[in-house]
């Protein structure tokens, strides 16, 4: 009989080998699905995994795009991971992302058309503050009234979406385009434009912020007292209390950090790649980032890799649709498979498969 046995130490070998094995298995399973849909599986997989990075036609454009697509995911996931480690369940990053974008854009639109070096930094602060503020609602309701943060943060996503629509149709509407929803194009307003720092690299301030956040989170989690408290609260809440961790403060800090980072992501998106406050501005980054956080095992460096891998399948998936007429749904299924394999194989890191003697039925 097969049984799992817990390893004393997580296996270093499998920790590194698993993602590769998962990708290979996804290629096989996905290839079978593509073949069943009547498409050449080898071409499909090449389009999804290789062409965005290596193809002569696309790579020079899509390599930088990988940064643009992955940066918000990484930025949000890093913040969420700290909370998840402490058992603070913020699943409303999507809402915090939207409100951050609205705050950032709000500052820009208030200053329009004035020039000024200080406008963009103010937008950065406003974006972070907006996300922070939106995350403080579940945090304060949790600490003051004992209200579950899963429910509050999730439902506030829907509220944020309605506010976004109302803003795009009302207060933030571009007065030069009467009647049409959507704000001014912030990319046309130099003082507010989150432009590429070096042309054709995809590097914008959001990417920089994502990397800073990763390093920052890494240091906090491994070197700082807060990181210790977070780990302790997550693994042994009672011991944490004895060690002087105030649970209420931890909730506020965790939600605050995640909210501020999600708000930043929204602000960098709306002032750069997104360009405009519009009804369908949100791209589900806040929800996808939860998957990224766990695929990266809540570890900042793992999150970077997970963010890039997921970003790659998005860009490659578009190529697959365009070049091979794969249905968009098949790409979604393919991504689902990849996640399943990545998660499923993880057991090898912590467990060992054993055949128990005498019970071989």
């Amino acid at each position, binding site marked *: 009989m097969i049984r799992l046995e817990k390893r004393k130490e997580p296996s270093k070998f499998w920790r590194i080998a698993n993602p590769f094995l998962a990708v290979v298995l996804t290629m096989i399973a996905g290839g079978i699905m593509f073949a069943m849909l009547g498409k050449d599986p080898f071409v499909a997989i090449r389009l999804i995994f290789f062409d965005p990075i290596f193809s002569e036609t696309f790579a020079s454009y899509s390599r930088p795009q990988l940064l643009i697509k992955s940066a918000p995911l990484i930025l949000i996931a890093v913040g969420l991971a700290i909370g*998840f480690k402490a058992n603070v369940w913020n699943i409303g990053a999507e809402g915090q992302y939207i409100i951050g974008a609205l705050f950032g854009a709000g500052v820009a639109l208030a200053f329009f058309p004035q020039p000024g070096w200080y406008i963009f930094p103010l937008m950065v602060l406003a974006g972070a503050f907006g996300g922070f503020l939106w995350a403080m609602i579940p945090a304060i309701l949790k600490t003051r009234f004992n209200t579950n943060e*899963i429910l509050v943060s999730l439902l506030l996503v829907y509220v944020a979406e*309605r506010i976004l629509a109302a803003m795009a149709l009302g207060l933030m509407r571009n007065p030069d385009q009467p009647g049409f929803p959507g704000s001014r194009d912030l990319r046309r307003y130099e003082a507010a434009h989150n432009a590429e720092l070096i042309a054709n690299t995809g590097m914008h301030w959001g990417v920089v912020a994502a990397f800073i956040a990763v390093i920052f989170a890494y240091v906090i989690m491994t070197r700082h007292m807060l990181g210790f408290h977070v780990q302790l609260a997550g693994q042994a809440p009672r011991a944490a209390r004895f060690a002087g961790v105030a649970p209420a403060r931890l909730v506020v800090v965790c939600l605050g950090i995640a909210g501020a980072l999600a708000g930043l992501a929204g602000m960098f998106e709306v002032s750069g790649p997104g360009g405009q406050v519009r009804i369908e501005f949100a791209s589900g980054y806040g929800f996808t980032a939860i998957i990224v956080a766990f695929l990266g095992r809540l570890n900042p460096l793992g999150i970077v890799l997970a963010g890039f891998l997921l970003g790659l399948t998005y860009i490659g998936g578009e190529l697959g649709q365009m070049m091979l007429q794969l249905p968009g749904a*098949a790409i979604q299924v393919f991504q689902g498979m990849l996640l399943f394999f990545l*998660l499923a194989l993880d057991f090898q890191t912590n467990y060992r498969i054993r055949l128990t003697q005498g019970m071989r039925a």
Partner: protein
Amino acid sequence: MILGSINPAVLMAALMVAATPILLAAIGELVVEKAGVLNLGVEGMMIMGACVGFIVAVNTGSPIMGFIGAALGGIALSLLFALLTQALMTNQVASGLALTLFGLGLTALLGQGYVGITPPRTPKLDLGPLSDIPFLGRALFTHDIVVYLTIALVGAVWWFLKYSRAGMILRAVGENHDAAHALGYHVKRVRVFAIMFGGACAGLGGAYLSLIRVPQWTEGMTVGAGWIALALVVFASWRPWRAMAGAYLFGGVVVLQLNLQAAGVRIPVEYLSMSPYLITILVLVIISSGKGRSLNAPGSLNKPFHASS
């Protein structure tokens, strides 16, 4: 008088219908969470039920077969989740989210040939003289059978969790899986059954949308109902009747805000359209602020279990 055109009996009738799909999914997820498992894939299982139920109903011509198919479809997807989280010990939150992504994509593929056709009609339940009772007749006794079966299911789950031996074991597993294991209960087996029940209920909720409420098949047609169901379980503090109250509250505010809009009440539309979410939060805050009472969350919720012996 503007508000005169809003009939409370009709409002009551409408909210019961609006609440049914989310209540079905929520009551399933409630049992799953009571067993200590957090499955965030409700939306994926719901859309699976909506799609499979529709396909089966169209091909067999029978709505009943459709609902059975929907439950099986939900179970099939939930077994994938069970395999991942129970056998392979994967993270529950991530697995559930992946399940939603997978379910949305898979159903879009499966349902490709079923867009733009109508499913067989589910017959209306005729409750005869009951539906002629003033007020109550219109409010309570004019629905399709699924509405009543859902209420019965809530009662059954309540009884099961509170009074049955199996329910007690399930709660024990959810509260403290190590202790339950020490007492000789099969933690994983209980959890797998709970997950399957959750899948079946979510599937039925989806089929209620695609076979009765709307009825049509379009990809992504659940539009977030699964997420609302998840929120309801928390709202209910894992108590079945409170889940029903929550679903009726949410459905009620949705229907009420539509009524206020149609009646031309001078409240900005954007505020009305976000009111169901805000009021649900507000009510939960009022309920949960009672003197630091515990949230009643199952003790082992979202914690992996591995028998070390």
